[in-house]
C-alpha cells in the first residue's frame, strides 16, 4: 500500500508537470493556428514557425524541474 504522504508527493509532482504541459499545449495551439495563417500568406517561413512552436516548451520543462524538485526534496520514488 502507498501511504498518503507518498501519494501526496506524487500528486504534487504530477500536478506541476500537468500544469506546465497544459499551458504549453494551449500556447502551442494558439501559435500553431497563427503560424498556419502566416505560412498561407508568406512562403518560406516554415523554419521560423518551428522555432515559435518550440518557444512555449519552456513551461513544461520548468514544470518538469518543479516536479523533480518536489520528488527529490520531499521523498518518494524519485529520491531513491
Amino acid at each position, binding site marked *: 500500500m502507498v501511504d498518503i504522504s507518498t501519494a501526496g508527493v506524487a500528486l504534487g509532482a504530477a500536478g506541476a508537470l500537468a500544469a506546465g504541459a497544459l499551458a504549453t499545449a494551449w500556447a502551442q495551439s494558439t501559435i500553431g493556428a497563427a503560424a498556419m495563417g502566416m505560412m498561407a500568406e508568406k512562403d518560406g517561413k516554415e523554419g521560423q514557425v518551428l*522555432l515559435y512552436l*518550440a*518557444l512555449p516548451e519552456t513551461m513544461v*520543462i520548468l514544470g518538469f524541474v518543479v516536479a523533480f524538485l518536489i520528488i*527529490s526534496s520531499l521523498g518518494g520514488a524519485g529520491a531513491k
Partner: protein
Amino acid sequence: MVLKLEPMTKARVICMQADTARVVDALYDFGTIHLTRSRQGTPGTPLQEFREISEELIFLRATEKALGIRLTPEAGNLEPRERLVTESKKVREEIEELKRNEAQLAEYRALMAQLKARIAELKPFENLSVRPTTFSQAKTLSLHYFELKSNRKEFEKDLAKLPIKTLFVTSDRPEYALVAVGTAKKALLLEKTAKHAVELAIPTLTERESFASALAGSTGELERVERDAAKLAGRQAAYSVKNASRIARLRCQLEEYGKKAELPNRFGRTQALEIIEGWVTSRKFKELERKILEVTKNKATVEAHATKKNAPTVLKNPPLVRRFEFMVRFFSLPNQAEYDPTLFISITFPIIFGMIFGDIGYGLLTMALASFLYLKAQKGFWRHLAGMMLLSGFFTTVWGFVFGEFMGVEDIFGYELHAIIHRTGHGVPILMVAALLVGVIHLGFGLAVGAYTNWRHGHKSHAYAKMSWIVLEAAFLLAGINLFAPYIFNSPAIIIALVIASVVALYKFEGVPAVVEIPGLLSNLLSYLRIMALGLSGVILAQIVNQIPFKSSLESIITSATAGDLTGVAIGILPAIFFGVVLILGHAVALGLGLFEAGIQSLRLHYVEFFSKFYHGGGIPFVPLREK
C-alpha cells in the same frame, strides 16, 4: 577578423545616357553589386529591348506550364540576345504546329467514339446468316432480332404461349434469337416477349454490305484511326521530352536579359545623364571603377561615398564557420554596428546540442548521416546543414562518453562505459547544476560581448549596465553554490552586497526598466535547465526502446539450436525478426526526435537567451546583381 562584417562602399556612377546599355552590361558582368533606387533626377526607364524580351518570356513561361516543364537550369554564359529571340520564335511556330495536331487529335477521338458505337451496334449481328436486306424487304412477314435477357427456355415458352404462328430461328450464338411473325401480329409478339428479351434495332447498311463485312470494315477503320492518333499523341509527348531543356534554357537566359533590360528602372536620369547608385564590398570598388571607365571610354565618373547608413550586410567567415551562417540569417543579419555572431554560434551550438543529445551511438549515427548528406549535397543549405550536423554529432559522441551512454545502455557490446555524470538517478542534480553553469557562462559571455559593443560605440552607460548584469549573474551563481554546496562558498553577505550593488548600478545606468527585467535574467538562466530535461527524456526513450525483447528472443534461438531443437529454432525466428525490426525502428524514432529536439532547443537558447544580451540584427541582405 571573422567577427567583423565585410566593409562596404556606396558607389555612385554617373554616365551619358548613350552609354546606358554598355554600363548595364558592365554592371551585370561585375555582378557583385547591390543596386539601390537612385533618388537623383527623374526615374529611369527600361532598355528598348525590354518589351520584346517580356513578350517572349510570357510565351515561354506559358509553354513550360502547358507542357509541364519544371526545369531550372543555370543561366551560365549568355548567348546573344538576338539568337535567343529567334530561337524563341521558332519554338512559337512549333507550338502552333502542336496546336494544329491537337485539333486533329480531337477529330480522331470523336471518330473513334463513333466507330466504337457502330461496332457495338453490329457485334450482335456478327454471326447472323440472314442478309440485312431481308429485314427491310419482307412484306408479309415481320422479322425481329432479340437479345435474350435470361434463360433461352423461358423465351421459347413465351413464344409457345402465343396464339399465333411464329417462325423461330436460332442463331449461332445462344444469347440471340431471330423470330419471324406475320406483320399484323408484330405488336403482340413484342408485348409477350418483353419480359425475357429485348428487340435489337437493325443497323442501317448499304445493299452490298453484310453484317459481317460491315463489322470487319468498322473494326479495320477503328484500328487505323487508333494507330494514327497514337502516332500523333506520341509526337506531342515526345516534343515536351525532347525540348524541355531547350525551352527552360531559353527562358532562363532571356530572364537574365530581362533583368538587365529593366535595370535602368532603378537609375535616376537628367536630360543627358544616367545616375546609378549601389553598394559594393570596399575591396571590389576599384574593380567596378575600372570596368565602368573602360566601357564608357572614361566618359563617366565613379564616386565612393564613405557612409554605413543603410549598407547591406555581407558576412565574412572561413569555411568551417560559414556553415553556421544560415542560423544567423534565419534569425536576422547583423546590422552595421554589430559583430557577426556566427563564430560564437559555431562554437556554442554544437556543444549545447551535444550536451542535450549526448550519446555515443546516436552521435556516431548523426555523424554518419551528416557525412552521407555532405557527400550528396553539392552546395547550399543542405551542405551547410550537413557540416553543422557533423560537428554536432562529434560533440554528441564526446558528451556520450561523459554520460557513459551508448544507445541508452551503459556499455558498448559488453564493454562497460564509466560515466562521469549519470544522467539518470543520482546524476540528475549534477546535470542540473552543469546545465545552469552552461547557462551562466553562455549568458555571461553574451553580456560581455554586449558590454564591449556598447563601449566601442560610445554608449558607455549601456556598457556599464551590461557589466552590472554580469555582476548580478555572478551573485545568482554564488547564491546557488551557497545553497547547494556551502562547503565551496558560504558568505551570504558578499552575495547580498553584489545584488545591491548591481541593482543600484542597473537603476543608475538604465533606469527602472532594467530593474523590472531582473526576474527575466533568472528566467533566462532557468531556461538552460532544458538541457538536462531534454537529455533525460532522450535517455528514457532509448531505455524504453531497449526493453524490446530482441536479445532474449535471439538467445532462445541459440539455446534451441544448441540443443538440436529445430522446431524451437523455427518457432523463434519470426518473433526475433519482428523484435529486431521494431528495435531498429524504435531507435530510428529516438534518433529523429533527438536530432529535432536538440537542434530546435539549442537554437532557441541562442536566439532567445544568448542573442538577447547583445544582438539586435536587422541587417539588410546583400542582393548581388548576379550570383557568380
